[in-house]
């Protein structure tokens, strides 16, 4: 048995394979699924305050469950201050930070009382998408951010 084997107390042939196995397990442990993403459904909307605190948003799926591909959302916006007018949803953007992917909603249909229907947001790849809603108030603007884990 070689000196390395004696030092390590095992066969030198096994050293690289055990090293790789250990490294593989270590790398597996370093990768975790999203733990702060919204679990959306039609019955279970997400309540989220905007970045600057000007708007309260409620985001719900318009389908049974989130899926890879086109998704529709129902969004309700309410100004945090009673004196402000109803906020306007101006944009819906989604990005996958690690891959450089970007998606925008082709249709935003306003309904009554600060409600909006977002149609066809194409979350085309599985994984975490960071969604940003652009919101306009009478004299100000804000954004609402939330994350989705597309299966």
């Amino acid at each position: 048995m070689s000196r390395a084997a004696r030092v390590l107390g095992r066969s030198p042939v096994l050293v690289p394979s055990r090293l790789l196995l250990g490294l593989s397990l270590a790398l597996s442990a370093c990768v975790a699924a999203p733990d702060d993403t919204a679990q959306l459904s039609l019955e279970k909307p997400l309540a989220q305050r905007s970045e600057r605190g000007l708007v309260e948003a409620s985001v719900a799926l318009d389908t049974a469950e989130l899926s890879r591909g086109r998704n529709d959302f129902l969004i309700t916006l309410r100004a945090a201050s009673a004196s402000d007018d109803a906020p306007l949803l101006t944009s819906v953007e989604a990005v996958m930070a690690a891959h450089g992917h970007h998606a925008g909603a082709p249709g935003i249909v306003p309904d009554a009382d600060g409600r909006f229907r977002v149609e066809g947001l194409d979350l085309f790849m599985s994984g975490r998408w960071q969604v940003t809603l652009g919101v306009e108030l009478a004299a100000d603007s804000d954004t609402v951010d939330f994350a989705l884990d597309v299966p």
Partner: protein
Amino acid sequence: MKLLAWGALLATLLGLGHARACSCSGQGPASALTRPDQTWGVRLSERLLLGYGAFNAHGEYAAFAPNEHDRSVEYGLLAAYRWQRLELSGSFGYSARSAAISDQAERSVGFGDTTLRARYEAANEPEPWQTGIYPALAMLGSVRLPTGHATGLAARGLGTTELALGVVLERALSRSFRAGLVAEVAGRLPDTSLGVTRRLGPRASVEFTLSCFATADWVVSALLGLRWEGNASLRQREQSGTAQRTTELGAALSWQPWSSPFRAGFAERYAPAIDQLGENTVRNVTSEIWLGIVR
């Protein structure tokens, strides 16, 4: 019996001592293109990447639908200059990528990222008349510059500058076999390629290679590669679940004669479609052919 088998294997791999002299260089991305007795080298390569599916954030693999694809053809130029134990090199790419996923489709053609690398051969393994089991050691330092288009479905680059450090350990196991281990870590600078401040996570990779010197000129290699990238950040906020992992198996055949300045090789890499072997990545099969000249 098991002990005898292991003893025979050890005798084969270690007992015979040293690999036959070879004109070996350029067997992988971490190898030197030039030998110590050469001054410069140029290598042209064509690489074809075919995507067959993707691993999600939970490590679950799903094959592409019939109308989906992700294909790239990359042409690479690697130019290297050696000064004693130090090899400086630059690699430049030009590629075409076509991707169609879900209802999205995109095609892009143009330059890829540019990588500048320094490789320093710090220590040689023992000569045949010396004792010792230590491997040859080389150190790597590289800068990857974002010269390729980096957003959208058919991105050809990283979108930011990457700084990497690595080590290469190589050791002859017998007259015909040689093992190599390449480990590299890299950090990425913040960028705004998505329109907001983004920082890609750090990268770590390790690749194990076992090469067989079938003849004085021909080398066959098998490889196992693992690659990990940490969570990306967007607007200074870490995005949990964006870390990536890739596991690849591969083989390479290279022709590296002593008597000629020409080099050639073919490599095939395969990412198995097995859950948990990948995460947040497209599963590719990669084929590469290259031609080189060294002086």
